């Protein structure tokens, strides 16, 4: 197991009160697995990723990475934020090399890695541009390249496609799978979009509304590339929709 969560609970202190966000979560993620987490807003999806990354601490329970308790961020765990969090003051090149620079890598290595990921993510032409000069899709790819550049074992992605036009989104999903194929890497991806999760994941973790608990874990064993219009795809989709959209839904029950 690459990552294990054991009875993880997380509470935030807000407005003088402790608010439980995640309660008693247990799960594990295998090496080279592609895991998606779906759930309504506020169910704690981002919080899970941050705890795995070591940016947030757990309130109780343990998270292990390769059997070790997580003490903080490490270079083996890459993180791609929803808003990309590209440094606007650095060019694409410097953004991608930021992690290697921090590690005082030599220039040969930097050059090699840069070329490798510029090529993999088709960013050669953008190398000297600033983030503000990039389209949404390119920003996305730079953020991924920046995380991959350190050759992490695990890549955590928080709604990487949420800000994108759905037409563009499909193209980038395909691209992501290509990277996943090319690199020996485990993906944990948070999304709102069930179809996206089915298209990408080996397993889908469905959270309940706040405080987040695991509603169900669904394994998707369809061969890739998956066809959104295939019978099997639709079946999985219907199963999840049934799970989260009770049929007796009434408008008046909701404000």
């Amino acid at each position, binding site marked *: 197991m690459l990552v294990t969560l054991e009875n993880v609970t997380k509470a935030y202190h807000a407005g003088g009160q402790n608010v439980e966000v995640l309660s008693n979560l247990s799960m594990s993620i295998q090496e080279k697995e592609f895991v998606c987490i779906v759930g309504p807003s506020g169910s704690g999806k981002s919080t899970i990723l941050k705890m795995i*990354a070591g940016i947030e601490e757990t309130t109780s329970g343990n998270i292990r990475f390769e059997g070790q308790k997580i003490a903080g961020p490490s270079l083996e765990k890459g993180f791609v*934020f929803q808003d990309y969090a590209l440094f606007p003051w*650095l060019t694409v090149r410097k953004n991608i090399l930021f992690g290697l620079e921090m590690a005082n890598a030599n220039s040969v290595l930097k050059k090699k890695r840069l070329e490798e990921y510029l090529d993999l993510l088709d960013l050669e032409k953008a190398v000297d541009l600033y983030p503000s000069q990039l389209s949404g899709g390119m920003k996305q790819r730079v953020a991924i390249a920046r995380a991959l550049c350190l050759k992490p074992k695990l890549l955590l992605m928080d709604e990487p496609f949420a800000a994108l036009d759905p037409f563009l989104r499909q193209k980038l999903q395909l691209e992501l799978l290509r990277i996943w194929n090319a690199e020996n890497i485990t993906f944990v991806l948070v999304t709102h979009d069930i179809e996206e999760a089915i298209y990408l994941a080996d397993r889908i973790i469905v959270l309940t509304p706040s405080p987040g608990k695991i509603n169900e874990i669904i394994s998707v064993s369809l061969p890739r590339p998956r066809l959104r219009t295939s019978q099997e795809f639709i079946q999985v989709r219907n199963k999840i929709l049934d799970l989260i959209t009770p049929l007796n839904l009434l408008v008046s029950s909701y404000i």
Partner: protein
Amino acid sequence: MVALTKRITALKQNAGHYLVRSLAVIVLLLVWHFLVIKNTNWPLQFGNLPQPIDVLTVWYQKLFEAAYYRDIAASTLRVLAGVVLGIVSGVPLGLWIGLSRTKISEALFTNLELFRPIPLIAYLPIAMILFSTIESSIIFITFIGAFFPIFINTMDAVKRVPSSFVDVSKCLGCGPIRSIWRIYLPAVLPQMFTGLSVGIGASWMGVITAEMMSGQKGIGYATWYAYNLMDYNLSIIGMFTIGILGFTSVVLIRSIERYIIKWK
């Protein structure tokens, strides 16, 4: 080709702007001229103003006097010194108070806030007592003018650095000390420049105040001196010279900003 066409269009638009602006100034001068000529005294006593033609004539003569430039240079140096001191103290202090959550920084901030609403001119007696040279007490006033906007803007900006920048830098192996240089400083730079341009304006306001009260040279001193002599031509020239200098400084800061902050 497209780029060229765009540039030409932009130039044309700019030319249009300059034309309107120049016309605007000319209209102002004409209105002023006629108000004086007609000795209009209602609603305001415009008739008492000197004629614009006289002011411009004297100004034109001034442009060939070394003393005029000596005064400008003296004031400029004082503003420069104040602004440099303002940056050197305001930026680290702003970073520190913005980032730290300690009682000490809160206490320091409270004390600084006590001094912020005090007009520059009111610092004069204290400045003269505290400093052992005249020059340093004048520079103290220009410094105070520059300090608060730079400090407040830096502090403000650093509080608003998106936490995702910091989180991502942690994940990329950037420790807390290095993040000051690599994350916080570049992230606050744009707003720091805003503070700087407000600060340099305030610094100009301060130098005039300081020089008017206590100078031997400088454009503020010259303006005040003209007032003492009841020379309204020179007073008005001084007024606009100061305005132009303040304006130019801000424009300069803005171009430095554009040069440094390439990423916008």
